[in-house]
């Protein structure tokens, strides 16, 4: 089976390379037949990569420990679900998985564009399969999943226990769907630049795929935070770790693009900027994959010692040259058709939103790459700690939130300052009222005050936007307010979906602020019957409990929880000992409410003395991060639903294309 998988991967390299050559030359020479063979080669590549993925899964399920990959990331007793996820547990498998997602996307693109975008498609295929060929090259020669060991060990080393968690089962696929999805807008941008067909159709297609990747990337980041929170046992969810940053950077540029593309749609402005954002997002996604898979930054060892490092750097360099070259080549065709009408306008809020987002992306990138840069410049690695990221990102986040509050009430083109002030009055008093209430409630933390007040401001402007829209519609249709609201939202899915996404963010902001500004912690070493407290909670150690199965052995401390005087159930923080690796894995236990999370960690147990060492965190409002994430996902899904307008535009575009071909 391993040989079969290997064979599939080499054949896939051939079909993938053929698709690149054939579609490019087919486009150059105008040979439709050749382009068709390229499209078939895309399907063939998909089938071959799929078979390779299946064979690797087969080997994992069949406990074929003579394969290095299986021996390293699986073991006999591993639960079935984690045998599936062991596919992306290591570098070789995850690169294969990356390729599988890419070629699946590419096949979908070919399938969906059999009649649409025909002039762009050959070069879209060239770009997508170019990337695919690179990744196939990696799994065929540098990071091979089907390498055999000289001997077959009795059992494998098992999947890292920290990855044996339901969130970890969906977090990487989600993140990868996002990372890989960014190749699609890039491919369309390259095709549009190369063919010079820079009309609406390329970016309408691009926008949809960007929203989808943005959605997956964002969901992946949130799931990663959740996983870190429940699994890693340090009480937090985000640490400005290079791997986390790597996924945040392209997400920020993507967010910028989703905003500025609206300006291009309406005013045909910022076209070069938008293309640059698409290109940047793709390059950052590749960089992110590289950072995640190679660990170059977290390791003290030199960048050049990583086996895939130089290859990735070369690929990035080539992509930069090709994309920037094409962009410069088309620069004369990309003149804006309009310019900014007024400084006080919705356009300018979008402009500043973009500058802030790209600035934020650059700051995170700078801090993340600093060790590599300093090593190149001074020969010694210098790292940048979390304070840098916090100090830079908090002001940027506040500025962005302010813009999100102003944006809905400011008019397109030219806003009259008087009208703006009028519209902003109620939200402004909401802000002042919110700040006053917080001060009265005893909140003295400046960051928390600013953050919560801005949150009330944005919630107020957004709620008013919904209300005004519904009122206006009510006047036109004469129906009830609720029906008008539904009708309004249904007719402008993107706009109101976008506002729902904003509200999701505000909830996340509230959660992040609460859990970082008002966190409390306590440590204690307890005998049976002893207790300790943190915030409003008191925890009393009752007894030790244990549980055993083939994969792991669990030992935990049972604690009775009291909220003030009221009993609030029991929590059992403990440790899992995974038999394959013989290592403990902390299993925290959390009592989660909308107000705060009580987060308990068992850090040690002395059986002779019967003493348990515990650490407790009280994380206020942390649940709102996940609730906000849910709201964000709903809003994003809603915004992605097809609008009536979109459908009409699509039909028109298809008609135009048929006409132009007939002419």
């Amino acid at each position, binding site marked *: 089976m391993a040989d079969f998988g290997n064979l599939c991967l080499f054949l896939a390299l051939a079909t993938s390379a053929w698709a690149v050559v054939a579609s490019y030359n087919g486009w150059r020479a105008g040979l439709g037949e050749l382009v068709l063979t390229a499209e078939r080669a895309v399907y063939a590549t998909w089938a071959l990569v799929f078979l390779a993925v299946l064979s690797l899964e087969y080997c994992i399920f069949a406990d074929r420990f003579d394969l290095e990959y299986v021996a390293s990331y699986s073991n006999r007793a591993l639960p079935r679900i984690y045998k599936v996820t062991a596919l992306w547990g290591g570098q070789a498998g995850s690169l294969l998985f990356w390729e599988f997602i890419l070629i699946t996307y590419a096949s979908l693109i070919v399938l969906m564009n059999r009649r649409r975008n025909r002039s762009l498609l050959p070069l879209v295929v060239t770009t997508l399969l170019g990337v695919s060929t690179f990744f196939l090259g990696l799994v065929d020669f540098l990071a091979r999943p089907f390498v055999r060991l*000289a001997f077959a060990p009795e059992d494998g080393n098992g999947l890292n226990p920290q990855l044996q968690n339901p969130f970890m089962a969906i977090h990487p696929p989600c993140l990868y769907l996002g990372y890989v999805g960014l190749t699609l807008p890039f491919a369309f941008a390259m095709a549009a630049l190369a063919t010079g067909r820079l009309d609406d159709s390329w970016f309408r297609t691009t926008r949809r795929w960007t929203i989808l990747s943005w959605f997956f990337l964002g969901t992946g980041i949130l799931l990663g935070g959740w996983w870190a929170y429940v699994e890693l046992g340090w009480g937090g969810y985000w640490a400005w770790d290079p791997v986390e940053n790597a996924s945040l950077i392209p997400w920020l540029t993507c967010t910028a693009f989703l905003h500025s593309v609206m300006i291009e749609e309406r005013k045909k402005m910022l076209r070069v900027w938008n293309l640059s954002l698409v290109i940047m997002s793709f390059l950052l996604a590749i960089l992110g994959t590289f950072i995640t898979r190679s660990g170059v930054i977290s390791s003290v060892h030199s960048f050049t010692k990583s086996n895939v490092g130089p290859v990735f750097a070369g690929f990035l360099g080539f992509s930069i040259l090709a994309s920037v070259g094409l962009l410069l080549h088309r620069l004369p065709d990309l003149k804006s058709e309009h310019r900014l009408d007024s400084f006080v306008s919705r356009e300018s809020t979008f402009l500043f939103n973009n500058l802030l987002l790209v*600035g934020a992306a650059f700051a995170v990138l700078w801090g993340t790459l600093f*060790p590599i840069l300093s090593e190149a410049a001074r020969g010694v690695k210098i790292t940048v700690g979390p304070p840098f990221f916090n100090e830079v990102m908090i002001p940027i986040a506040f500025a962005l939130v302010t813009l999100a509050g102003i944006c809905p009430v400011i008019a397109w083109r030219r806003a009259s300052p008087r009208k703006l002030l009028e519209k902003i009055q109620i939200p402004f008093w909401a802000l002042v009222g919110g700040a006053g209430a917080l001060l009265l409630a005893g909140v003295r933390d400046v960051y928390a005050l600013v953050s919560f007040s801005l949150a009330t401001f944005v919630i107020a402007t957004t709620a008013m936007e919904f209300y005004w829209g519904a009122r206006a519609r009510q006047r036109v249709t004469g129906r009830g307010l609720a029906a008008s609201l539904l009708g309004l939202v249904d007719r402008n899915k993107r706009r109101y979906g976008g506002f729902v996404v904003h509200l999701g963010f505000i909830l996340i902001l509230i959660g992040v602020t609460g859990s970082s500004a008002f966190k409390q912690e306590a440590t204690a*070493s307890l005998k049976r019957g002893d207790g300790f407290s943190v915030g409003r909670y008191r925890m009393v150690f009752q007894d030790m409990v244990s549980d055993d199965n083939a994969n792991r052995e669990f030992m935990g401390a049972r604690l009775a929880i009291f909220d003030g005087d009221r009993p609030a159930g029991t929590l059992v923080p403990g440790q899992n000992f995974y038999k394959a690796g013989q290592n403990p894995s902390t299993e925290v236990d959390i009592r989660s409410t909308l107000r705060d999370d009580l987060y308990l960690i068992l850090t040690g147990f002395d059986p002779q003395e019967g003493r348990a060492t515990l650490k407790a965190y009280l994380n206020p409002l942390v649940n709102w991060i996940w609730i906000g994430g849910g709201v964000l996902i709903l809003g994003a899904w809603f915004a992605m639903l097809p609008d009536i307008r979109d459908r009409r535009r699509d039909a028109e575009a298809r008609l135009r294309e048929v006409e132009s071909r007939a002419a």
Partner: protein
Amino acid sequence: MAQPISRKVVITVGLLVLGFAVLFSVGLRGSLVYYLTVSEFMDPARKTDLGDNFRVNGIVQPGSIQRAQGAPGARFILTDGARQLPVVYRKEVPDTFVDGSEAVVEGALGADGTFAAVTLLAKCPSKYEAQNRQTNNYRKPAGQGRPGTPTDAGSSSR
């Protein structure tokens, strides 16, 4: 009318860029730390122009871990094969911190020559070294750790 608008935009963009620059320099000050191997750190000629804090990378010398009793934390020796650095850490150690794991400590050297770490990151021993192949002993003895931790988890465990 076009002229004054673009000037306003240019000024605002300029202010934003200036703001970024200020944020950057303020943020970078105090968060830059040298990242060194044990030998580099113990080299008397090393640079100290970024303050007393350092990040040091090495392997936890097998058998050197002494856990504190009744309190979190541990004392251990960090080595890179050539030199040894005694380290003390007083918070909860991560699960990945075992004999032979790769560790990164951040903190400052105390007066007694012990490195007082305020953060400790640990990564499991990297996947089977040459001796495992030779001795056919693929499964490591207890406490010797698990295979190469995927970077996803390894670098974010703390």
